[in-house]
């Protein structure tokens, strides 16, 4: 089974995509990490605690608008102290320094 290697339709877009993909470098994107080195943030913990993406990232990603969010320690702390999202019933989380800093 090699379905994904074959052009499935005759649409010209598919061939263009194929030719671009064959000439693309291994990592065509460059990822820039904006989180400072001394801060720890783990998406998994927040997701498994039931925090929705839109709580921090807004609704933009649903319309394919990415980036532009501004985070600071106050944003984190307010939620960890249980001040924001009261209606969602999120539990207060750790607020000691070494929970997020190293």
């Amino acid at each position, binding site marked *: 089974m090699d379905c994904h290697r074959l052009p499935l339709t005759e649409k010209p877009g598919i061939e263009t995509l194929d030719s671009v993909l064959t000439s693309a470098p291994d990592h065509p994107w460059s990822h820039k990490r904006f989180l400072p080195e001394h801060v*720890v943030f783990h998406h998994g*913990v927040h997701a498994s605690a039931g925090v929705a993406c839109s709580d921090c990232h807004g609704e933009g990603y649903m319309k394919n608008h990415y980036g532009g969010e501004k985070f600071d320690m106050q944003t984190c702390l307010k939620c960890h102290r249980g001040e924001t999202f009261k209606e969602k019933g999120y539990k207060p989380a*750790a607020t000691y320094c*070494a929970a997020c800093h*190293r």
Partner: protein
Amino acid sequence: MDRREFIKSCSLVAVMGLLFGCRKSELLGDIASQFSVPELKRFEDEVKLAMSRAKKSLDLVRVSAPGPLKIPGASPVNRFGMAIDLDLCDGCGKCILACNLENNVPLVPAEDATRGRFMHWVEMRGNAPLMCAHCGDAPCEKVCPTGAANHTPDGISAMMYKRCTGSRFCGANCPVHARKFNFNDAQSLGLARQFNKEVPLRDKGVMEKCSLCLHRLQNDRLAFKTRNPLSEWRGRGVKTACAEACPKNAIVFGNWLDPESPLARLAKTRILYAPREVAALDPSVVFVRGRR
């Protein structure tokens, strides 16, 4: 050339110089991450030098096993600590190098090295490794004017480098001198190397010390809470770099309040000791010797 013209040309030169200076500093910002990094051999040699200059005396007194912390908000289930088995330890010093590489501990300039002022978080005292005891009643934290030295609920005397303003009160108040001050800008002097990307390099003017490999505990805690959001994290399976590196397994890391932890099991059959200076301060890192 009259006076006015002379002053004009002078100020022009000054402005040009300033502009050139700005351009240069921008350029420096770009290559800041490419400071020369020292060879691994230099770290090994420094550890050997530190070992040869180690103080010979370690005055130990008996202590009881650490219980739950007495600070407000302390965790009733976690208190991390270590025990160093003096019956097994032969003072090889592999823990010092392992710690330095794990925590990106910088080298010191030659002048400091001749005076024995190393940045090592673990040092040899009386042929056994001595590090921060993570006292439950830590004297260093009481004198910190900024709150950079503080206690986590699970018993680690943590150090928040970005909060530290370098008053050095904590270092003066530590009875075993476990805290080390960054007198030199190790990165620009080419004395620092980031072996471990998990641990940030420290700036000049910041106090540092053993963190009980805080980053390992943090990573484990986050991974555990992702997998089991409802159960209690006990830090099982985590080891510090020194405990991992010890060829005789003389350093045991664990959770004093977890009966399944190797540390709690060890403490049941052994006699615990602590350096005389910190014995009354409820230390989390202790020495064990002999059986009871």
